[in-house]
């Protein structure tokens, strides 16, 4: 659905985005992680055809960014939730959405149906005739999301949708994104909330002017220091147990006292034969834990590179 190939944006001497190459599948929630000033917003603006690229290529829904004709087509199939909600504060919630529905050529019936549907889903239907300027931050954010969805776009770009929201409002927004995920919407989510990315995203990319890593949150967690399994025994680890484990293809196997540690790629597959081998060698397993680097560790390591 979204492809970029060496996409670059320079503002004078400043390079905001450098040689960005990534791929977002149809129906995927793609988390775009990076610190402030990493080029996340610039990337979204390029993909939404709001600003021009300096070099490289990118397509959204098969349409080329940078082409005048395709730019209009891209803007028809996308919805944008910018980092500043940008609502017309002197219009009611209903009128804000109705205006955008008209711009996207939605029929009167479609507009009515979608406005009710999205305001209902976001708990704002009762406030439809209230001026947007009187809304709380969370309500404004929800309204901005509804605005981006009013024409049922194929791709939704969200730029820090939960930034500055209280935990309850953040949860509502997150739950709504999960709801959209179930509906197989393609979502490009700019965030520096790692917990959010881990919970919501199918795939994430870590960015700091250039792309540092991309993959599933689990893949990225493993990419830095991998994961370890720590097995606790009822008794001291003896030679019988160690000899049994050495027969298995375990990396970095070590033992100390009554604990055994080894690296693991896929704990679901690899831990079961380990437990079996220990039991057969007369050991009694008390506990088994998988420990490893978190997405935060990976993120910090990669953005500091």
């Amino acid at each position, binding site marked *: 659905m979204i492809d970029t190939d060496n996409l670059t944006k320079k*503002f004078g001497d400043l390079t905001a985005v450098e040689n960005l190459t990534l791929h977002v599948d149809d129906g995927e929630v793609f988390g775009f992680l990076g610190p402030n000033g990493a080029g996340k917003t610039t990337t979204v*603006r390029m993909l*939404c*055809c*709001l*600003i*021009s690229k300096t070099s490289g290529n990118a397509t959204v829904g098969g349409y080329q960014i940078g082409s005048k004709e395709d730019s*209009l*087509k891209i*803007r*028809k199939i*996308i919805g*944008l939730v*910018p980092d*500043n*909600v*940008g*609502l*017309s*504060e*002197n*219009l009611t919630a209903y*009128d804000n959405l109705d*205006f*955008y529905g*008209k*711009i*996207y050529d939605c029929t009167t019936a479609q507009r009515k149906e979608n406005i009710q549907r999205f305001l209902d889903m976001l708990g704002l239907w009762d406030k439809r005739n209230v*001026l947007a300027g009187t809304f709380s931050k969370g309500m404004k954010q929800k309204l*901005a999301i509804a*605005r*981006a969805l009013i024409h049922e776009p194929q791709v939704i770009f969200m730029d820090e949708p939960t930034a500055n929201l209280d935990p309850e409002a953040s949860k509502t927004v997150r739950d709504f994104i999960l709801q959209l995920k179930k509906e197989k919407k393609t979502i490009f989510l700019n965030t520096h909330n790692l917990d959010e990315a881990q919970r919501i995203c199918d795939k994430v990319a870590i960015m700091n002017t250039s792309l540092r890593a991309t993959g599933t949150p689990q893949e990225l967690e493993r990419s830095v220091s991998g994961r370890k399994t720590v097995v606790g025994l009822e008794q001291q680890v003896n030679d019988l147990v160690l000899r049994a484990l050495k027969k298995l293809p375990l990396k970095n196997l070590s033992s100390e006292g009554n604990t055994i540690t080894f690296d693991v790629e896929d704990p679901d597959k690899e831990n079961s034969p380990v437990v079996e081998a220990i039991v057969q060698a007369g050991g009694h397993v008390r506990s088994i834990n998988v420990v490893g680097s978190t997405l935060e560790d990976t993120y910090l390591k990669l953005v500091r590179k």
Partner: protein
Amino acid sequence: MRLSKAWIIAARDFKIFRRVKNVWYSIIIFPVVISVLFPAILEYLAIRGSHGLAAPSVLPNLLTSFSFFLVIGAAYVPLGIASYSIVGEKVEKSLEPLLATPLTDAEILLGKAISAIIPTLVAMYAAAAVFMVGIDEVTFSTLGYYYFPNWNIATLLLVLMPVAIVMSVLFSVIVSSRVNDVRSANSFGIFILFPLLGIYLLSETSIITLDVNGLLIISGVLLAVAVALFFVSTKTFRREEILTKWK
């Protein structure tokens, strides 16, 4: 460019204006002052018997001069509206989502222009109607005929006034891109009135005359200025420019 899309923006802006007092003040105050003040001045002069100013021989010139204030008013009124319409969006940061829609820059700019031009035209034509009726009422006994309507005022209202409004709106667009609040936009926007005040002073010193020919020439010059402002404003009102360079 699709006029229907520009109209959607203008219609949205009209809805917003209904709730913004400052826009109402812009639309109402100056037209009311012009339409009431000038007939009132003549009435006052007539009651006092100051025939030096209100004598039949000088009255037509005086009325022509007064009429020109309708043009100055027409250039002043849209400053408040256009400034609010664009700076207001900047303050609310509502331009970015609008720019992410399938509208062209020209459609957005035209929508903004329509939303400033239509209320101004309505207000100024209403003011002109009251002005003409008021002046006719006050001057009939002195002149012995109704001074308005005449070809002068027709040229002024139908040719010069729309050109002055368009020029003012385009100037507001340029000013609005450089400032962050409506008050500053208004303050800088006032500069567009200087050429019109200059024309007024030149007419008062008889260097130019505000007859039909004179008004058409002035309209032509202002139209040329408006065309130049149009090119500058379209360069200013571009997506990338708005998102990266506007203050």
